[in-house]
C-alpha cells in the first residue's frame, strides 16, 4: 500500500496544498458573508493539515499527524466561538456582511 503511495512525489502534495490554501485566501478576500469567510479559513487550515499528514507519512514520523490532530481541536473550538460571535453580530446588525463591521475605523 505504502509502496503505491511512493509513486506520488511529495511535490504533488505540496502544490496541491498550496492551491487549496490560495483558494481559501481568495475566498476570504472575495466574499462578504462572514460565515463563508470562516469556511474559507477552515479550508486553509485543511490545506495545511493535508501537507502535514503527507510529510508525516512520507517521513514515517507520527508527530506530524499529532499536530494535525491538535489543529483540528483548535479549528473546532474556533468554529464554535466564531459562529457564536457571528450570531451575536447578526442580532445587532441584522446582517452577516463583514463590511458593516468598520466601527473601529471611525
Amino acid at each position, binding site marked *: 500500500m505504502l509502496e503505491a503511495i511512493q509513486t506520488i512525489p*511529495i511535490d504533488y502534495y505540496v502544490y496541491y496544498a498550496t492551491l487549496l490554501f490560495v483558494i481559501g485566501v*481568495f475566498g476570504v478576500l472575495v466574499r462578504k458573508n462572514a460565515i463563508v469567510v470562516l*469556511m474559507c479559513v*477552515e479550508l486553509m487550515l485543511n490545506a495545511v493539515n493535508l501537507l502535514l499528514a503527507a510529510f508525516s507519512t512520507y517521513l514515517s514520523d507520527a508527530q506530524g*499527524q499529532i499536530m494535525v490532530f491538535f489543529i483540528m481541536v483548535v479549528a473546532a*473550538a474556533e*468554529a464554535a466561538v466564531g459562529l*457564536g460571535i457571528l450570531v451575536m453580530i447578526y442580532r445587532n446588525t441584522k446582517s452577516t456582511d463583514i463590511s458593516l463591521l468598520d466601527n473601529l475605523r471611525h
Partner: protein
Amino acid sequence: MRGKRPTNRLEFPHYSNILDSLLMAQYIFLTLAAISVLSALSMVLSKNPVHSVLFLILTFFAIAGQYILLNAQFLAVVHIIVYAGAIMVLFLFVLMLLNLSKEAEPQKSSVWKLSAAITAGMLLVTMVGALRGGIEVNIPATPNSQVGLVENLGKVLFTDFVVPFEIAGILFLAAMVGAVLVGKRDLRM
C-alpha cells in the same frame, strides 16, 4: 519453452496487477485532488451560502480520501467526524438559523473581485515559485506504513503528548463556556 507457457500466463496477470495498483494510487490522488479543488472553487464562487457549505463538505470528503490514501486512518476518521460531522453541521445550522437567502447575500464590486483574484493569483505564483527550487527532504527508503494507525498514534498521543492533550480539553471547555456566554441574550441570570 512451450511447456512453461502456462506458468508465464499465470504470472503475467499478477505482475500487471501490481503495475495497475501502482498507477492506481496516482489516479486516485489526481481524481481526489481534482474533486477537492473544483468543489473548493465552487464553494468560493457560488452565490448561495448553503451551496457553499455543501461544496465545502464535498471538499472535506475528498481530503478524507487523501488521508486514507496516505494510510493515515486515524486522521481520516477524525477528519470526517470533526469536520463533516460537527463543524459543517454547525455552519449549516447557523446558516439556517439566520435564514440567509441568495437575495440577502452581499456582493463585492467587480473591481474588488478582480483585485482579489489578482492578489490570490500572485500569491499562488509566489508560493509555487518559492517551492519550485526543490524540496529537500530525506525520505526513508523503507517507510513505516504503521505510523498513521490508531494504535501507534494513540501510544504517541498518550505518552509524548499527554500535556498538550489535556490542555486541549481545557481549551474545549473554555471555548464551550465562551460560546455559550457570547450567544446568551442577556448576561444576567
